């Protein structure tokens, strides 16, 4: 894994105001600098209105970007003449709401939309649609002809994810990927994403108000608040600042949250107990029972 080379994605003092120059101007991001290297798995977390979604949109140039702020593989994506089509074939974004992502009304057609737009031959497109739908747990032969509007919310989310997976982008950005999924669907999706990230050596960016899921997928955390970066570091280090995270209203992973509560009884509990097993071991030590 090339994690030491030049960053694949870079934000340099990125600032963004929606509807700039109109009375409805809305400043969303006030100077974010982040470097993301190839193969990294980064969680972008923060409370609502922290600028997460704007940062995510900037990665695929879905905004009116100014030059000198967003770079992909060292190139300024806002530079005149930059091939934005190529950028979007390499950076896949799964939006927060599946309904804003799905463009066709039949499942198979929607998943095929990206590959078709990329000009892939029909056979390859079909293969990718099958693979992606099977991958997200919607069997190809049962779902390919179903109507999107007749699916449940969770199923629609999977269709949206399949549509991006079918584009086989080396960078995968997910905005709140597990919102609206039942516990089983959530587990399955997290498993799928981990597997994909390993198999295809994806650069994974997961955006969320909760570290619960992101902590299972990512090894680096960027915390945003009020359109600025507050913390940026390896997962374990960031989790040690659990008080700061809690004050920003960021949902902590369950073992960490439990540790915080248990610290009232055992003030010396370490803050980086990532799993229930770690926590159990520490507790058994302190309780002195076998």
């Amino acid at each position, binding site marked *: 894994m090339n994690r030491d080379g030049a960053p694949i994605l870079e934000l340099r003092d990125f600032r963004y105001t929606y509807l700039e120059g*109109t*009375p409805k101007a809305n400043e969303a991001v006030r100077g974010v600098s982040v470097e993301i290297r190839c193969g990294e798995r980064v969680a972008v977390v923060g409370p609502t209105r922290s600028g997460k979604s704007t940062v995510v949109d900037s990665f695929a140039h879905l905004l009116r970007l100014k030059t000198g702020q967003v770079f992909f593989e060292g190139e300024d994506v806002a530079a005149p003449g930059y091939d*934005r*089509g190529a950028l979007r074939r390499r950076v896949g974004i799964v939006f927060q709401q599946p309904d804003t992502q799905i*463009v066709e009304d039949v499942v198979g057609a929607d998943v095929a*939309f990206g590959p078709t737009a990329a000009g892939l031959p029909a056979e390859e497109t079909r293969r990718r649609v099958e693979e992606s739908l099977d991958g997200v747990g919607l069997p190809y032969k049962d779902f390919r002809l179903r109507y999107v509007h007749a699916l449940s919310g969770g199923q629609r989310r999977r269709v949206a994810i399949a549509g991006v997976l079918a584009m086989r982008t080396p960078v995968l950005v997910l905005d709140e990927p597990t919102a609206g999924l039942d516990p089983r669907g959530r587990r399955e999706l997290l498993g799928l994403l981990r597997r994909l990230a390993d198999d295809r050596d994806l650069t994974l960016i997961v955006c969320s108000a909760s570290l619960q899921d992101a902590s299972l997928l990512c090894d680096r955390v960027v915390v945003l608040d009020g359109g600025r970066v507050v913390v940026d570091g390896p997962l374990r280090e960031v989790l040690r600042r659990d008080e700061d995270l809690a004050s920003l209203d960021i949902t902590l992973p369950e073992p960490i949250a439990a540790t915080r509560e248990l610290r009232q009884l055992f003030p010396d509990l370490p803050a980086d107990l990532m799993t229930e097993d770690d926590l159990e071991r520490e507790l058994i030590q302190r309780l002195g029972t076998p």
Partner: protein
Amino acid sequence: MLELQRNVVFGQFVDTGSAVHRVDARVKIAVAFVCIVASFLIDDLLGFGLALALMVGIQALSRIPLGFFLRGSAFFFGFLLFILVFQVLFYTGEVSSYLWRWGILSVSTGGLYTAGVLGLRVVFLYYLTTLLMLTTSLVDLTNGLELLLSPLQRLRVPVNELVLVFVIAVKFVPIFIEEMERLARAQTARGVPFDEGGAVTRARRLGRLLVPIFINGFARADTLTTAMHTRSYRGGRNRTKLRVMKAGPSDWLALALVTAWMLAAWQL
């Protein structure tokens, strides 16, 4: 990306809390009514010049930036200009002198003058309604219209329902715009760009959005109906208001001033 809201100002409400915003909604609607009547009476360039000057004055008072309004109207003005060109070319009224003639097409001073007056009338009406909506929230607009039209209820005109339909129709303009942006963003993210290519390519791409926009529009209307049912909405009968509108002396003064100005514009 697109930020169509920049390009379509019609139907938006921008709260700057100015004096114009604070005027009683009923008075603003009455002012609009006076202006609309005047726009049919006025028939010369000077009259419309005065009428438009009043609008510019109101806009300045409302503290809504002129640039924002102009940029948000460019699309409409372009369309109007396009129509006026035909108005001039196919003018068939009394003509004293031709500037240019080819078959049935012609450019005459009479045609230019009529088209000019027509254009100003349309611009004036557009400016008026846009300003009304920019400075009046939808709730105030609804309440104002309902109150103004309430005498008609005695004649069994379903005022509340009519106003509601009108308001929903107006409200759907920004909703459609939002919908369009959503779809454009979705397709762009999946590799069909909206922000590249020449004017014709772009227009064709926008065209492809029309069907999904209407489907989603119907879906939204359906959701709205359900939402209103679940809250037991039924007309305006027996409904009370949290904020009761009260027109003060300054409101009446505003109405009187506008009426006087428009009378002058008509008679001069």
